[in-house]
């Protein structure tokens, strides 16, 4: 049986990605696994402005709230599109055993693979993939 040591979760600061992060933290606690919140920097991200410190503090706060030790939850920022960056997380140096994503990016046109990060990931991922449905009141989870 697969031992889950590292969980990589796609995290862009959106409510849905926060729900996915919480799900990953709740899974990690009992397993003693570490969680890596992965932020993909796409082409437009440098124009939009983002703050890695802010992300780090969200991750630290949620890790604390969900009983995951500080050292076991981290933020990783990588250049690339979200799908490719997450696929790469199953390789070194992250070596994720599981990928977790929120359901945002479900795709505009049902039935088409294009435009859906989660469906595309399902096709390209080299390790298990968990798609966590979004919740409106993510912050109160």
């Amino acid at each position, binding site marked *: 049986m697969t031992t889950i040591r590292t969980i990589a979760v796609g995290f862009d600061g959106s409510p849905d990605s926060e729900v996915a992060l919480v799900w990953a933290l709740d899974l990690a606690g009992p397993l003693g696994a570490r969680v890596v919140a992965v932020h993909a920097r796409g*082409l437009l991200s*440098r124009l939009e402005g983002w703050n890695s410190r802010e992300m780090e503090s969200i991750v630290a706060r949620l890790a604390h709230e969900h009983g995951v030790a500080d050292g076991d939850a981290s933020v990783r920022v990588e*250049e*690339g*599109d979200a799908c490719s960056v997450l696929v*790469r997380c199953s390789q070194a140096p992250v070596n994720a055993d599981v990928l977790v994503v929120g359901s945002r*990016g479900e795709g505009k*046109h049902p039935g088409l693979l294009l*435009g859906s990060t989660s469906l*595309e990931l399902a096709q390209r991922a080299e390790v298990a993939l968990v798609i966590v449905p979004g919740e409106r009141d993510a912050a109160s989870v």
Partner: protein
Amino acid sequence: MLIVNELTENAAHEDPGHPERPERVGAVAAGIGSLHLGGDVVNVAPYRATRTELVRVHDGTYLDELGAYCYAGGGDLDEDTYATYDSWAIAQFAAGAGLAVVNEMTHRGEGVGFVAVRPPGHHAQRDRAMGFCLLNNVAVSAAALADRGERVLIVDWDVHHGNGTQSMFWNDPRVLYVSTHQWPLFPGTGVAQEVGGLDAVNRTINIPVPPGSTGDTLVRALDEVAAPVIDEFDPTWVLVSAGYDAHRADPMGDLLLTSGDFARLARRVREVVPAPGRLALFLEGGYNLEALRTSVAATLGTLLDAPFDAAPPSSGGAGEDVATRVREQRRVALELARAARTSGEDA
């Protein structure tokens, strides 16, 4: 003589506020206009690239899906890349514009080709859109030339690594792909150790340079790392993925190139063109309209011996050790690849 596609802004492929916008073609047109080429310009009507021409580098299922996605109304393909109802047709015409220019040049046996289309292409993969790109325009033309028996050199000086183009020709010995790009930067690929697949060892040359690099770094690395391989490859055609986002005023990167640096890069490229009418440039990035205008003018002015205004080339920036480092990283990677190839043949 400049052989250029009929310029159109393709306003129906637009996402308000997105930097890959119709006005970019207007900036290119202004840059060409500033050269006052008069009758020395041939405008080529683009055509819609056929499925046969596209499947040389793209999966048929991807083409079907992209068409269906657009006709369903389009939308965001990923966090960076959009499509509209009209994008499928526009992308086919963009790929076809490259083919039309290359065909015209083949027929004439003279001139310098420029393919000023949008959306750009070099991030587009076999089976997916990415990084503002839907179809890989330069790759479609390179594959068409390779199928005619040509040895094609692609020089990609966009600030981003052309991951789509590299992957399409990764294992194809008929095409030599040379890229200078900022690293780290989107899309995260393009390290020096990527030297080509087992059937095309040394047919990929990546020259990643750090933020703050100047034009002299790129030129030196091209001279020291790429030139000997290009000589040996002996191209019969040269295509350029001419992105202008390495310009210091461009919002998408952190390199410090000026319009004068593009003149310098163009001179280097001209030196490896084997015969008249065997050089075509394809617009990729370039999102500061003024930088785009002046840099296109500097590039084409240099290649066509027309007077142009340009800022002095840049020098003295970061990455002075790039050429040495890239050469060493490639040496090790090439040894490993050749050993793997030999053991594969023995098996």
